[in-house]
């Protein structure tokens, strides 16, 4: 199975925890006509990491880098969930049963249902298990 087509490139941006930082990131992406498909902010002691799925990750990366931001790519996967009670449980159980750890996750609910973005410790294993269970993984081409 070609698992690679399911590996999605998330951009992760280091940000100090102070007013205006998210606006600066969003403004830069807007200027480049880059669309943000999903995003989340994780915060720790005085700083945070902005995580985003965008339609043009390379361009987003270069633009943010040129502005002095600290940017890295992170591999994540995206699973379609039923947008109804128990939807998240189904996906989480598959991974839990397979011994795959979810490091973090965020979700969005779009036109075609809900999507769960997952950062896991074993990407290949997670992709295989999810495929075998019959759940739907979104291909990279859906995003970029």
């Amino acid at each position, binding site marked *: 199975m070609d698992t690679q087509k399911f590996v999605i490139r998330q951009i992760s941006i280091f940000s*100090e925890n102070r007013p205006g930082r998210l606006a600066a990131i969003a403004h830069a992406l807007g200027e480049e006509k880059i669309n943000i498909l999903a995003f989340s902010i994780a915060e720790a002691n005085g*700083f945070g990491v902005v995580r985003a799925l965008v339609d043009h990750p390379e361009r987003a990366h270069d633009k943010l880098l040129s502005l002095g931001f*600290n940017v890295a790519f992170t591999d994540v996967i995206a699973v379609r969930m039923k947008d109804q009670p128990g939807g998240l449980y189904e996906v989480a159980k598959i991974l839990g049963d397979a011994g795959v750890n979810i490091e973090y996750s965020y979700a969005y609910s779009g036109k075609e249902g809900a999507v769960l973005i997952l950062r896991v410790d074993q990407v290949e294993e997670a992709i295989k298990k999810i495929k075998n269970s019959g759940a739907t993984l979104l291909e990279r081409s859906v995003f970029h």
Partner: protein
Amino acid sequence: MFWDKKIETLKPDELQELQLKRLKKTLGLVQHVDFYRKLLSGAGVKTSSIKTLDDIQKIPFTKKQDLRDGYPFGFFAVPMKKIVRIHTTSGTTGKPTVVGYTQKDLDTWADLIARNMTMVGIGKDDIFQNMVNYGMFTGGLGFHYGAEKIGMAVIPSATGNTKRQIEMIMDFGVTTIHCTPSYAMHLSEIAEEMGATLDSLRTGIFGAEPWSESVRQTLEKRLGVTAYDSYGLSELFGPGVAFECPERDGLHIWHDSFFVEIIDPKTGERVSDGERGELVVTPLVKEAMPLLRYRTGDITVKMEDGCLCGRGQKIARITGRSDDMLVIRGINVFPSQVEHVLLKIPEVGNQFMVYIDRINHLDEMTVDVEINREYFSGELADLARLQKKVVKELRDALELRTTVKLVEPGSLPRFEGKAKRVIDRREAI
């Protein structure tokens, strides 16, 4: 009250005679130290060239950096079998400054502390709680042995657990405390919260960091003590070098044990009495680690008026430093130490800013440091680990808890010429 009235009230001519005798003896002792043999021969100074006290000006200064360069035992003038104690103070580049003591040094030191405490009326009947660090910091053991020598009941409570400290003061009927002025402020607040009145307290000895007259008034009111300023530095044994008498108008520095000069820190020339300058001390009674014309970095002034108590010439309370050393919770910190630590951690940049605040009367140091672009993995957990690592490395090097803030690369100010990396936001005290 006097611990040693004769020596504490020596007439000027007798004092000078004693100082000259002890200076000559010290010149003999330093011959066992390579650094001094070279320093003196380089300056063309022989023991016989020192005929009067003024001749001391022929001798070049000793700087803190010289002591660091001698790490670890380069300044010891006696064989190791005669050394009975080693203390260290933090250095600027990771290596501390080492000070050694013979048994005679420890006796001399305890005697000086006993002089100070007796001078302010503390005696055998007093119960003394010593609330400073008992480790490598000289303030703990220094006061401990001095107070025991007087015959006081000494409680080596050290630092931390403020509630327990307050309970002991109340339960044991403590009359005298020693700590940093900032810790005393903190203690007074906690005592207030606990509703503890601390009725038994009478005397507070505060030192290791500069403090103002308004802090004195606040501490005296809140703790019900008479507050005295204590001055010393590890290179000169530790605390006990100078101390306030009951007049509390300047500090008596013990001229029989320390030869005092005040110099212009830029030119190295002596200033006249009444002019501010850097305190330079030649200890006259040290055995394990004799020093000549040691530049303390502390700014003070020789006071011209005599003192009602009958002791010798006073120096004004220390108001600042001639170098970039910071005193944070009583611990000496040089900005270069922070730089040295950061250089060893590749995941962060070499630019940094240090902010010092006083929060609840305690000094807090915050270090802003840029994360290194190449090491950014995109994972929050890696950043949190890095933050902890920097905190730990700083704590190991400075013996001080700090707050570390990771900031974006390129966001800290760059300096051309002299960097101003330290912002001290503590109110002037």
